[in-house]
């Protein structure tokens, strides 16, 4: 029975969605629909927890239809995908519980659940499958549902955001398919396992050229700089529970696919340095752009871009240290960013606006303000919270690369500055009589608890989850046997001191300026028109090909 676990993880939400769709006929009550959705979201997490002991012995491979591995389609549950699935399960359940409060989902909540379950299916499919075409198909399920879910607020700008995402995302899909086609031409395989054997046999030249297409596909999903144009709009105009999933998981699928592409052999020097460079540009510029806005959702969206840039840049070093640090930071980022987006949603629920000058974190609901402050401090990287440990390991592994090291500290500083800016500005006197319902509080409490516990138990997390994931990707570890004192003493090591000092520096700077507002890059980075963002794609392909040719 355990053998079927990976398949059931994909099928369970899907069945739930289909049943939900026809449930109008025989189960008209809302409570049943909620129950169906909740159960079908819970099943995959339960299955994962059950199969965790089995996973210690090695990856679980499920062969669809009984056709053996390189020929049929297979589902693979290894260290990395189990970590991703755990993260996905947590976030989707939190988001779902939040969306039980239906004020924001004005038209038709059951349609929302239906699409949400389908999106979850697609994400599980992307994380679990071991076949590149299948990964494409499931990604397509994910983004097609996302296009519709973004418009759920029904505003003009949400339609526009959805259209932007549709055009850019479809170009990315076409590029992904082109890459697959070329890959099949040169290797004759579609299975990831067989590809990882076949691709290193190709010449560097061909690998670079094929990656030019994958770069666009993955870049749009991770939102590294020339391809990030869809992200802020989509994050801002989507309904809150959807934004949480978008920032928490959907963006991470891009990073996951990038890791997988590195793993199957697209790890030539040119590709890796290009991605390190793009990631660094992304990290710094997006953090700077985030200072420009007063809309809290927009600030968070730009910081998401920035942090994804950090993750891709460090992972592209492609040594076990960088990869494990990137994975740890990926998970941390998911937790605190979801928490933050949900608390912003709750603030919008209370005050009706996301403008940081008009809302107050301090005078709102107690639980909400604690959750929001934990999320913000975690993002700023204060030691007991999980954001710090991810940053620490990122810094520690990049000691040998001074430029990378410096930029990481810079990003840390800018993020902290953004956070303190939010603190300073959000102290208005506005009050509200609205009360938050339990369905909003519960995910906030759970996620802020996870942020704190995740920080405090980083050593166990590194040992039990991140190391197997790194092993599944690289076939080696960065360092084994993390113990609690090793991790807690990080605070007084060189990197820890640098991080905390820059935190205090940011606090100092924000205390002594009235309102830090940088207004730049209009039309280049932010507010890019659609033809221009396609132009960026053309330029990037041309750049990679040209670099390869030289």
């Amino acid at each position, binding site marked *: 029975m355990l053998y079927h676990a990976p398949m059931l993880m994909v099928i369970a939400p899907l069945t739930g969605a289909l049943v939900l769709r026809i449930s109008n006929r025989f189960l008209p009550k809302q409570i049943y629909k909620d129950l169906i959705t909740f159960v079908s979201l819970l099943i995959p997490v339960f299955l994962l927890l059950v199969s965790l002991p089995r996973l210690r012995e090695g990856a679980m491979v499920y062969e669809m239809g009984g056709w053996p591995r390189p020929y049929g389609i297979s589902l693979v549950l290894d260290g990395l995908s189990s970590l991703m699935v755990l993260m996905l399960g947590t976030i989707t359940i939190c988001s779902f519980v939040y969306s039980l409060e239906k004020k924001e989902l004005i038209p038709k909540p059951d349609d929302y659940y239906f699409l949400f379950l389908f999106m979850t299916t697609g994400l599980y499919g992307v994380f679990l499958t071991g076949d590149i075409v299948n990964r494409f198909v499931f990604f397509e399920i994910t983004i097609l549902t996302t296009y519709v879910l973004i*418009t759920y607020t029904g505003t003009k700008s949400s339609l*526009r955001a959805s*259209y932007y995402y*549709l055009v850019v995302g479809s*170009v990315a*899909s076409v590029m992904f398919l082109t890459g697959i086609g070329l890959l099949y031409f040169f290797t004759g395989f579609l299975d990831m396992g067989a590809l990882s054997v076949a691709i290193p046999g190709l010449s560097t030249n061909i690998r670079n050229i094929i990656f030019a297409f994958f770069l666009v596909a993955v870049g749009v999903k991770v939102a590294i700089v020339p391809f990030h144009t869809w992200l802020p709009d989509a994050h801002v105009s989507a309904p809150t529970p959807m934004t949480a999933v978008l920032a928490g998981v959907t963006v991470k699928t891009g990073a996951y696919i990038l890791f997988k592409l590195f793993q199957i052999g697209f790890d030539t020097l040119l590709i890796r340095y290009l991605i390190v460079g793009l990631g660094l540009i992304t990290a710094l510029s997006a953090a700077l752009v985030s200072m420009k806005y007063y809309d809290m959702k927009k600030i968070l969206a730009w910081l998401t871009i920035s942090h994804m840039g950090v993750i891709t840049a460090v992972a592209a070093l492609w040594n076990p240290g960088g990869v494990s640090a990137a994975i740890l930071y990926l998970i941390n980022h998911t937790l605190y960013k979801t928490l933050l987006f949900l608390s912003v949603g709750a603030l919008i629920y209370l005050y009706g606006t996301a403008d940081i000058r008009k809302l107050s974190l301090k005078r709102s609901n107690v639980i909400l303000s604690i959750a929001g402050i934990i999320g913000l401090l975690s993002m700023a990287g204060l030691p007991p919270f999980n954001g710090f440990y991810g940053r620490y390991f990122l810094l520690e592994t990049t000691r040998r690369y001074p430029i990378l090291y410096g930029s990481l500290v810079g990003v840390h500083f800018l993020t902290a500055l953004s956070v303190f800016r939010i603190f300073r500005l959000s102290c208005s006197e506005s009050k509200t009589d609205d009360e938050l319902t339990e369905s909003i509080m519960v995910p906030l409490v759970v996620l802020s608890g996870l942020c704190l516990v995740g920080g405090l138990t980083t050593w166990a997390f590194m040992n039990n989850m991140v190391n197997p994931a790194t092993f599944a990707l690289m076939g080696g570890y960065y360092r084994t046997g993390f113990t609690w004192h090793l991790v807690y003493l990080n605070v007084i090591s060189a990197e820890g001191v640098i991080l905390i000092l820059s935190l205090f520096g940011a606090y100092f700077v924000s205390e002594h300026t009235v309102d830090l507002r940088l207004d730049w890059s209009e039309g280049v980075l932010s507010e890019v*028109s659609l*033809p221009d963002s396609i132009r960026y794609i053309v330029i990037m392909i041309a750049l990679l090909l040209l670099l390869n040719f030289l």
Partner: protein
Amino acid sequence: MTILVGLYGMTRTKNSIKMIMCLGIMGSGVILLFVSVGYIPGAGAPIVGHSAEMVDPLPHTVMLTAIVIDLATMALGLALVYHLYEEYGTLDVTDYLVGED
């Protein structure tokens, strides 16, 4: 190359329906690519008993998937364009930026 034509068309046009059309052109490009990937000189259709040597059927399968996904994306895109037109009253994508609400 058809893919590139579509890509260029997308940078060139400002009309949102034309953009979706360019997506369609890019999709056709991918279909052509997959058909050519499966091609083997002198081989016939991939049906048993039809010809001695047959072309590679796997890319054809993937191509079918690509067609369907293209169709799905275009349907959704056109629906979006319709609603955008209803809301903004224009098909020009550069105008969509102006109307912040």
